[in-house]
């Protein structure tokens, strides 16, 4: 079955108000920016967004936050977005912070049919409050629950017509794990190729996880911190 759709707008057309959406990306790197722009344009509201960070004020998930489309945000760090901070302090947006590794593993568990797991992360901290703990081989662990979503927005480098995906450098981040943990996974890629054109041994996300794939119309790939060094005299 050919999983290719024509545009981001097609991909998000059936997302209702109140949906829970996972969104790949770390900071502004590896963001499904075409899907975010399309959802912003459509104005879908009351969303729960699960993403490591809420982007910056005018890019990434921050676009949805600024337009008041997000009612609940779940991630590990929200420090780079002034408008998010304003809404959080004003009580206009609910947010839940999860340690980044626990966040990734909860999503992995959600996609892998695991009903929860014991992690040493956060033991003895406020993160563990109200959660079951257990000593296993002398080490303290906290029980964490799986995390799933209605939709996952994924950015990959290349995809084929069967939905197989490969990634590029650190733009991989949360994308592969989120692709596994949603009812509908929509992947935007920089290049679509025919089935058989990607090396089967190199595929990171097998097409079984991907519902739709499309070629992104435009990738801004904004850089958050432009750290460069000067060429030194030899």
């Amino acid at each position: 079955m050919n999983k290719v759709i024509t545009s981001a707008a097609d991909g998000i057309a059936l997302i209702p108000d109140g949906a829970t959406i996972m969104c790949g990306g770390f900071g502004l790197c590896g963001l499904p920016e075409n899907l975010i722009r399309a959802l912003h344009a459509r104005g879908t509201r009351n969303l729960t967004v699960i993403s490591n960070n809420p982007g910056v004020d005018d890019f990434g998930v921050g676009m949805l936050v600024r337009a008041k489309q997000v009612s609940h945000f779940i991630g590990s760090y929200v420090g780079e977005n002034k408008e998010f901070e304003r809404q959080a302090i004003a009580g206009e947006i609910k947010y839940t912070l999860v340690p980044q590794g626990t966040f990734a593993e909860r999503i992995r568990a959600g996609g892998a049919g695991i009903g929860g797991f014991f992690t040493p992360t956060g033991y003895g901290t406020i993160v563990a409050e109200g959660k079951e703990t257990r000593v296993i081989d002398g080490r303290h662990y906290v029980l964490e629950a799986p995390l799933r979503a209605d939709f996952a927005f994924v950015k990959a480098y290349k995809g084929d017509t069967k939905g197989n995906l490969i990634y590029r450098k650190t733009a991989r981040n949360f994308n592969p794990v989120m692709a596994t943990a949603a009812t509908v996974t929509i992947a935007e890629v920089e290049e679509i190729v025919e089935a058989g054109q990607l090396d089967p041994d190199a595929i990171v996300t097998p097409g079984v996880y991907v519902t739709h794939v499309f070629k992104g119309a435009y990738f801004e790939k904004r850089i958050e911190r432009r750290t460069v060094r000067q060429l030194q005299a030899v």
Partner: protein
Amino acid sequence: MEKRERIVRRIARELHDGDYVNLGIGMPTLVANYVPPGIDITLHSENGMLGVGPYPLESEIDPDLVNAGKEIVTELPGTSYFSSADSFAMVRGGHIDITVLGALEVDEEGNLANWMVPGKMMKGMGGAMDLVAGAKRVIVAMEHTTKESGHKILKKCALPLTGTKVVHMIVTELAVIEVTPKGLVLREIAGDTTLDAVQKSTGATLHVEGDVGKF
């Protein structure tokens, strides 16, 4: 020498050839600039990379290649990329030899507080809780006291914790302190200070065993 440089230079001497090392955002990142000659380490970045190289030249900038501080970086030969889930499996699984992080408070049990200041908006712990829970060795890099000369090394942390009994060593501009089952042991002090001055700047008892070195 500037305080921060003194701290990160001293921490760099804790690195062993072959170590896999995660450096926190800010001052800890600078440790990479002082790795001693003959020591070959591999830098882990929790967003999914082993083999982090220096910042790029203007001509090498690649927006798909950032470190955990969201700075653009380069890759060294032998780099590997992996998902965030794999990255933290590596961390929790004890495969990272050393992590270096900043702190707001550390106490004599090795408890660490570095992510939340009461009264300020919670911005999140990022990967810090996983790193301190999982890395084989946790080194804190921080200035010895607050800007107002308040103690940061305490009998018991007052701020919300990042991890319990996780810190192995504290390096400040004044001292190198090891966290042991019997409390804090003073290993070295800076060349321009005294044992007395270091103890006065510390809110917990510093034990002395044998010679205290200078750094």
